[in-house]
């Protein structure tokens, strides 16, 4: 790929060294994928297959894990099940073959919806506030700007549990405990620091001459911001949004301490999925797979901006 430009350079690595490097990296990549592949495989196993000794690599795939993830079931006598008539769905059939009937929907889907609402809500807010603040820091002389920026960053250094204690008390007073709004505000505050730092970097790269030209043409500063700067910053804003989204999507510590029911997100819920006699690993694996797939897609979309995002814009490549 990029070897074209350095093909004749004396520092081009030799063919053998490339081959050795490639094989080590590929071996590492394969090893690192094993736990993830195992999650996906387990999600298609039946509960007995999932806990077989030794672990099964070849097995009869089934959707039982996914069925169990989305339903709650009760045990019934074979006579009762025989009297029910035709099963209405694949899941119904699988459940009946275990001498159980579907009793209702599980909490997974509501928890997943909470994750969606809270992650997207807080991302939208954090990126909006962050864009304004980043523009302010990038274009205006703000007294103590360096200190303010450092202060914004340092809010990230607090251990989440340390922040959670007073937030817990504050939310109890304000009636925000276990509400989506409370979680959205909290995640927005955490993400704003990332958004300001990243977006300031992106906006710094847009030449100010563009806005100045627009303002000479009669735009106000606000119009110039919306019509000139925002369109130029789209890539940066999109990348920032995905980083905020991933944080809010993956967050566990605040979620487990501050939500218990109505606003609980998926990360604290997934570990609590249990079947008869212990953790229902295929259902946990199914829940994990569904939860993780959106992030995989984002990682691939983001790969060029990844470095910048994870270092708060400190490394830009």
């Amino acid at each position, binding site marked *: 790929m990029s070897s074209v430009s350095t093909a004749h350079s004396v520092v081009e690595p030799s063919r053998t060294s490339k081959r050795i490097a490639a094989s080590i990296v590929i071996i590492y*990549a394969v090893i690192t994928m094993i*736990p993830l592949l195992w999650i996906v495989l387990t999600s298609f196993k039946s509960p007995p297959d999932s806990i077989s000794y030794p*672990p099964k690599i070849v097995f009869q795939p089934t959707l039982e894990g996914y069925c169990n993830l989305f339903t709650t079931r009760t045990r019934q006598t074979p006579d009762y099940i025989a009297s029910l008539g035709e099963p209405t769905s694949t899941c119904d059939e699988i459940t009946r073959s275990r001498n159980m009937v579907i009793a209702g929907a599980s909490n997974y889907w509501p928890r997943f919806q909470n994750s969606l609402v809270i992650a997207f809500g807080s991302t939208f807010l954090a990126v909006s506030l962050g864009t304004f603040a980043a523009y302010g820091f990038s274009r205006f002389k703000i007294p103590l700007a360096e200190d303010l920026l450092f202060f914004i960053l340092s809010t990230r250094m607090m251990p989440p549990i340390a922040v959670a204690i007073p937030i817990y*008390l504050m939310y109890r007073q304000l009636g925000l405990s276990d509400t989506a709004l409370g979680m959205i505000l909290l995640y927005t*505050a955490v993400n704003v620091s990332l958004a300001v730092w990243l977006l300031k970097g992106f906006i710094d790269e847009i030449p100010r001459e563009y806005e100045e030209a627009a303002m000479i043409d009669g735009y106000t500063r606000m119009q110039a911001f919306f019509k000139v700067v925002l369109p130029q910053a789209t890539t940066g804003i999109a990348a920032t949004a995905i980083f905020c989204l991933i944080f809010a999507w*993956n967050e566990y510590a605040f979620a487990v301490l501050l939500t218990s029911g109505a606003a609980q997100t998926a990360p604290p819920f997934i570990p609590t999925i249990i079947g008869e006699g212990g953790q229902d690993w295929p259902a946990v694996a199914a829940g994990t797979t569904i939860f993780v797939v959106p992030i995989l897609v*984002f*990682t691939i979309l983001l790969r060029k901006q990844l470095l910048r995002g*994870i270092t708060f814009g400190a490394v830009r490549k």
Partner: protein
Amino acid sequence: MTDTSSTSLGEAVARAAPAPIASRIRGLSDRSMAWLFITPAIALLLAVNIFPLIWAIYLSFTNFRANRPNAALENVGLSNYSRVLNDPNTWQAMQTTAHFVFWTILLQTLIGFSLAYLIDRKFRGHAFWTTIILVPMMLSPAVVGNFWRFLYQPQIGLFNHIVSFLTGIPPSSFEMLGSVRLSPWAIIIVDTWMWTPYVMLICLAGLRSIPDYIYEAAEVDRASLWRQFWSITLPMALPFIMLAILFRGIENFKMFDMVTLLTGGGPGSTTEVASITLKREAFESWRTGRASAFAIILFVAVFGLANIYVKALNKVKQR
């Protein structure tokens, strides 16, 4: 920074332009504009980060217990702090955290830098494999960490079987999560699996920032590859490596989610890192005042260490 102050430029343009345009350019003065832009973000941070922090500082001087909000509040001075600092459990937790932070950083830096060095050989398909390697760090430590509990099961778990396959030790002869000796390593392995790509990515940026002509010059001088590595590659990538260590150090010092789900601090308290002790104090023993004192001590420790480290980093950068 290239700071052609927009204030003066705006004013200069405004003065030069005919009156109607000038007023349109000014609209709001730049000073009020600036505050309009940054105030919402700062206000939110004050309300959700700083106000609670100040509250926590206040609570750390009281005997407040969140499960008895109506009990009389007493000012206990510094006694919460002295109790936390004199409690052997605190130092036990600090030691556990230090062990965890030290080994994760050491392993991640070694493996991450080596991988970056190999990827920088630019073999065919390196971009694809880099993306594959990056996947674990994007996933939820809680959700994926939870699954490692399954991988570590002594009878049925994949991890024990792979170790058994490679070494011949029977898979049910050791328990990664149940044994006092192995459980600290169980969390180090998962963290290293998850975050090595992070260090790798930053190191890769460091290696790519070294201009080719330096190596060309070294080649002309007939410096050996070994020599090139120690006197060009490593020193020039060092600020990047140090940056990666800073970010990982801060993150792992406050590690909570992955460890909670894997071991919950156990067995006993062998993997009880500081955040877990803090959570137990605050949300299980409900000693809110004392937990707040501990939280402040932790925050000051992270903040202080990070500041010292950044100073060192800047020195290395300036060299």
